[in-house]
């Protein structure tokens, strides 16, 4: 069946809703990569067998990840008319009991993490119901209470391998609205007015980039999604694609319509097999419903998306290296200009946006630019997803309005250091970012404020460090990473980082002198100022920030 009219879409929504709320118990098992790794898939298989054999009246689905990684495997139980209950740290042996209780309209109380009475899917909303008085409300869990889920609106709640569930929550309605009732220019205008900035780290206004691409000369153009999430310690994009792939596809579809582009590409890391698999499934389903391909929604507009896999090179996050990689070349950045919007993949004008940037687009169209820009801070609108990892108690994926302070994220949501240790610093922006000491944790997380303290937004990894972490060792770790990922084209990055690493090794071995420390600083500045691309230009940041904020730790390393 192809969706060709508002009526078709509406009946698809009703069909999807019945899948989410089937009028009988429904059990969802978190099966994104991390859920699977702690036993989610084994649990799913176990449940599947029990249900097949004994309880055919229960609906069982795989869901994505709700973000509370520390509590995985997470299982959701939905009883008709009652709150949706999240169970945590579920073991395969719990399967039988969860199922038999669900049949009686109950849940195992001691496994319950919290309950959800109603949920705002942003593009739609769902009322689950009441009951389960002994179980805490979703908003009473500090990890969830301080978050605002816009991008992660469906993650962990719907089946990512079923397009109908996405439509059931109001998905593809924004695309329908844009394509059938808005001029392309009006779509761009809406995105511009929303203030949405690139979520890959640089923060360039997305609407303006779209406008430049639209105006670029050339008949054939590309839009590309950068899903080569390379920052060590960042896995937001993986989770977004594994948990809700259609929000990405819909964002790209709306963008393609606005820019008048017919070919889309998703450049994704080869290290994310599950995300690739789920994207493939999602693409096939979207094509079969006529949401991709020829004559989309009977509008005459054609657009399709292909997947291109990376092969392990952090530098391919740089736009020109990424384009080269798609073309089947080594990812060595070239000098700019020309920018990709002028001369991108195979020489054609190309719009490149990060996964999360695309995921915001359906919401902007659904709720309007004013609604979107009311979230977050001035000039930093909307939310951002972070992977809160390292030595923090509540490890997980968190989404907060831009402008939220590091204190809120690390102490309120993250509950401070793991195992009661004292938090010392946090690294943002991966190898390109810097380490911020705990005394600066009142810094609001926005593009400009992070730059001011010597680091950057990056794609969203927040690695927490505690009193046991040695900051010079952290600096060495990042330089070793950046040197290993350097493409080798320009001398400051190729040779400069290598010598920075050698000096750091000398210092950490206790064989360094004040001269070494000074040379390290001097060299850092040259690498920053003279490297060809962003990798080299930002690679010294971890060294410079740790030298600035934790100088005493370097002094302690010096030879007596």
């Amino acid at each position: 069946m192809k969706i060709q009219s508002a009526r078709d879409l509406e009946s698809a929504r009703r069909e999807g809703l019945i899948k989410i709320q089937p009028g009988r118990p429904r059990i969802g098992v978190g099966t994104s990569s991390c859920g699977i790794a702690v036993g989610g898939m084994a649990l799913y298989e176990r449940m599947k067998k029990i249900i097949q054999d004994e309880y055919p009246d229960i609906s069982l689905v795989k869901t994505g990840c709700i973000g509370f990684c520390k509590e995985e495997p997470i299982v959701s139980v939905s009883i008709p008319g009652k709150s949706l209950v999240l169970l945590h740290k579920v073991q395969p042996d719990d399967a039988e009991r969860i199922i038999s209780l669900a049949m009686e309209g109950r849940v195992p109380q001691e496994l319950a993490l919290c309950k959800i009475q109603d949920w705002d899917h942003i593009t739609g909303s769902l009322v689950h119901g009441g009951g389960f008085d002994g179980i805490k409300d979703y908003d009473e869990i500090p990890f969830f209470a301080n978050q605002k889920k816009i991008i992660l609106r469906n993650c962990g709640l719907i089946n990512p391998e079923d397009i109908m569930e996405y439509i059931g929550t109001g998905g593809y309605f924004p695309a329908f609205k844009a394509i059938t009732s808005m001029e392309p220019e009006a779509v761009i205008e809406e995105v511009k007015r929303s203030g949405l900035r690139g979520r890959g780290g640089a923060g360039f206004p997305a609407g303006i980039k779209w406008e430049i691409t639209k105006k670029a000369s050339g008949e054939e153009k590309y839009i590309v999604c950068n899903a080569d999430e390379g920052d060590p310690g960042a896995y937001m994009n993986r989770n977004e694609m594994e948990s809700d792939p259609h929000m990405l596809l819909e964002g790209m579809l709306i963008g393609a319509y606005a820019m008048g582009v017919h070919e889309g590409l998703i450049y994704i890391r080869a290290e994310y097999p599950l995300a690739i698999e789920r994207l493939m499934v999602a693409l096939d389903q979207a094509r079969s419903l006529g949401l991709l391909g020829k004559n989309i929604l009977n509008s005459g507009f054609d657009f399709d998306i292909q997947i291109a896999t990376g092969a392990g090179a952090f530098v391919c996050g740089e736009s020109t290296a990424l384009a080269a990689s798609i073309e089947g070349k080594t990812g060595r950045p070239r000098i700019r200009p020309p920018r990709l919007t002028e001369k991108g993949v195979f020489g054609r004008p190309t719009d490149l946006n990060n996964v999360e940037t695309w995921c915001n687009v359906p919401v902007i169209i659904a709720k309007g630019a004013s609604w979107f820009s009311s979230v977050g801070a001035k000039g930093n609108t909307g939310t951002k997803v972070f992977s809160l990892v390292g030595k923090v108690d509540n490890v997980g994926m968190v989404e907060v309005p831009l402008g939220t302070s590091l204190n809120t994220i690390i102490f309120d949501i993250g509950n401070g250091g793991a195992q009661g240790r004292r938090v010392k610093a946090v690294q943002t922006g991966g190898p390109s970012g810097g380490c911020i000491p705990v005394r600066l944790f009142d810094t609001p997380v926005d593009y400009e404020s992070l730059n001011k303290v010597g680091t950057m937004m990056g794609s969203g990894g927040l690695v927490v460090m505690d009193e046991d972490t040695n900051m010079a060792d952290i600096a060495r770790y990042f330089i070793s990473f950046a040197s290993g990922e350097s493409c080798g084209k320009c001398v400051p990055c190729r040779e400069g980082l290598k010598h920075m690493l050698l000096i750091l090794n000398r210092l950490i071995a206790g064989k360094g002198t004040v001269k070494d420390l000074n040379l390290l600083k001097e060299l850092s500045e040259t690498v920053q100022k003279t490297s060809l691309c962003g990798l080299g230009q930002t690679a010294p940041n971890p060294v410079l920030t740790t030298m600035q904020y934790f100088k005493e730790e370097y002094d302690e390393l010096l030879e007596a």
Partner: protein
Amino acid sequence: MPVNGRKRMVTITINKNQYLAEEGEIFLLTAMRLKIDIPHLCYEKALDPYGSCRLCMVEVVTCGKTEMTPACTIKVHNGLEILTDTPEVIKHRNILFELYLAEAPKSEVIKEMAAKYGVTKTRFLKKIVHDDPLLGKCILCGLCVRVCSEIMGTCAINFINRGPFTVVNTPFYEHNPDCAGCAACARVCPTNAIVFEDTEKDRVMRSWSGTTVPMMTCSSCNKPFAPEKLMHEIQSRLDPQINEDIRNMCPECRRRYISRREMKIPIT
């Protein structure tokens, strides 16, 4: 914009002095013509700017702010303002020279160039040169790779590995039958790192895993004079074709043959 096919001349400022320059020209070339000294290693007129050696970095002044940019990537436009010798430029350039001295410790070219700018020592650990087919002289500017692929269309050599482990060589470090033996790589190399030699019958590209290309022998004097593959390549592109008599002659014999013919001296 060209007016009547001629380039438009615009005013630019270099180190506070004003000059007239051709609009759209690569600034490095403008500076060279104006005898303003900017060191560089990876620029070659026949190829697009590559921007890898970073030695030609200068400061571009825009609205009172300066930004370090390689001179080979700047296009001349009206009002362009450049500073080539600020303390900032010199400071970073000197460190780059130190990095080069450590990376290519055997290169006389690098030593001389660095010395010209006052850098005679490096504080960085020098690379240990051991069995290096490029003799400890390669600075990975990429000119050989680009000439081989972009000008010659051969693609016999390429970068291998990445980051500090990058080298240039043939695939699998083996004799590469794709090589035409043109030795353009050796000619374009700014540090004379590439070694080849002509033996009785062959041209041996010593730096490229001993890639061997047979030489064509002169049909007149029987001496080898050019790689066979290269000669065939050239001959196939010539129009009209060279006369059969002199087709396979070395340039010297060919000259003699033609002059004798013109002077009507019997050819033996």
